[in-house]
């Protein structure tokens, strides 16, 4: 930022702390939901929502598996600075199939050799800093790293 233009880059976000508060369990520990009527598991959580499989309205918290394997990979060299994701380029993103069958689209963190991020590679969840919310506080949430069994 130039000294002549000290105002921060205008971001589109008016993200509220309340919204981040509501999503905390899913962001911090991958808490989804499970339908108590048919057993289907969901992420993001469907708390209070209707099950698309059996149409019951009976969800309970469900702790998703925190490890799995990569099924697809893409490189993001642009980021999304307008909503606070302009740093740490390029980002390596992946679709991950958790060990309980749930799929997520996530950032793969701490990659030394991008060629190791490929379909079939094992990954595990970590808690990471995502961005600052409008209060200046850090937003934390899930990310994934390669799991080399070390």
């Amino acid at each position, binding site marked *: 930022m130039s000294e002549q233009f000290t105002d921060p880059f*205008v*971001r*589109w*976000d*008016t*993200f509220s702390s309340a*919204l981040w508060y509501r*999503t905390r369990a*899913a*962001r911090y520990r991958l808490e989804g939901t499970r339908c108590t009527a048919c057993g*289907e598991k*969901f*992420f*993001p959580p469907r708390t209070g929502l209707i099950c*698309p*499989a059996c149409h019951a309205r009976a969800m309970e918290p469900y702790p998703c598996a925190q490890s799995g394997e990569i*099924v*697809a*990979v*893409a*490189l*993001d060299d*642009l*980021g*999304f600075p307008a*909503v*606070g*994701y302009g740093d740490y380029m390029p*980002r390596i*993103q*992946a*679709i991950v*199939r958790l060990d309980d*069958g*749930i*799929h*997520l*689209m*996530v*950032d793969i963190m701490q990659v030394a050799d991008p060629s190791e991020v490929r*379909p079939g590679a094992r990954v595990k969840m970590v808690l990471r800093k*995502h*961005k600052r919310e409008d209060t200046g506080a850090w937003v934390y*949430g899930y990310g994934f790293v390669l799991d080399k069994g070390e």
Partner: protein
Amino acid sequence: MGKILRRVMMIGGAITPPNIPMDWTWRQMAAEAFWNALQDAGVPVKDVDLVACNYNDRAIADSSPGAQIADALGILPKPVIPIANACAGNGIASYTAWNAIASGRCDVVVSLGFARSDNYDAMEAMNSQGNYVDFDYMMGLTHINYGAMRDSYYRRKYNVPLEAAGHWAYWCNWYARRNPLAASYSKPMPVLEELCADTPEAERDRQATNRGGVASAMVFVGEDVARKYTDKPVFFDVAYAFRPPYIGNFFHYPVESMREYDMGELPGLMVAAREAYQIAGIKKEDINVVQVHDLTAYEGMMALEALGLCEIGRAKDYVLSGGMTLESKCPVNTYGGGPAFGHGSAGSDFQAGVLENYWQILGKCGERQVKEARVGVNTSYGTHHSLDVVGVVQKGW
């Protein structure tokens, strides 16, 4: 499905050309498309019973856009139904128009869309322009990221070569040089070999180009009143379906029509196509011109598969064997597609395809005219295929 009381016919339409003046407001754009469509159809403003309007100018229009649009179009106190559902929301607008006419409640309905995409301000923050807001978009994963991931996955799953994507972009550009409404109309024709290269530049050229601000409109009437305005109406039918908005849920979502598919297919589009064909009374073999909404070449091929024109994973063969050309049994993207006609978002992504098929059936497409075009199908989608729409136009009586 309920009882349909009468057929719906399309009698005119219009779309703004690329590079509209920077100082046009969204109201001016909407009025331009609305006015020109009514002129094309020979319908006076006073005859319009209802307007269904898709928009993506959230910053200025959210909360009460209906009255603002009705005022801009000069139709007050008649109703406007405002619709906001991303790039394919025009499909919902035309679905709304279709229902109003098929039920007999309205005789003349206009489906309108506009996108003044430089109208952003900070209120954009909470709109769902990308994916599942809370867990994709808010965590920095956008529909652009989805597109890259989907292409990578589709290519790998079905072993789709770069050459197929290069040919797709080439033929979109070939048609666009013959369509004055296309964004790439007056630009140099790209070289096929360069479009097939494994370079970042070629990858960019195989994707959609931007149209900037755009508006479009289509005029629909009941079959029994069509003769009042024209002797060349075409039948119009439309259907749409949703897919879960969270990208992870593309894998084995627990409903019958989607459980067996993943990110390499478009099951929402399959559902919409089945319903649209049924309502229109056609079979896939009847289709002889297709326009798809393709922000990337791979996505265009996936759409052909979902429409049933090719087996799943085999659109690459259709493209590489000349299936997109005018000599084909069913030419594809004669309007220029995403790579060359350009991405118009809420302003045109659905209606551009309908309008092209409408003009094809009327024989108005000049050098890009398909011989004996009788049944045209088009597709469009919103965000990352959380909304998929299929439109069908057929030669009238």
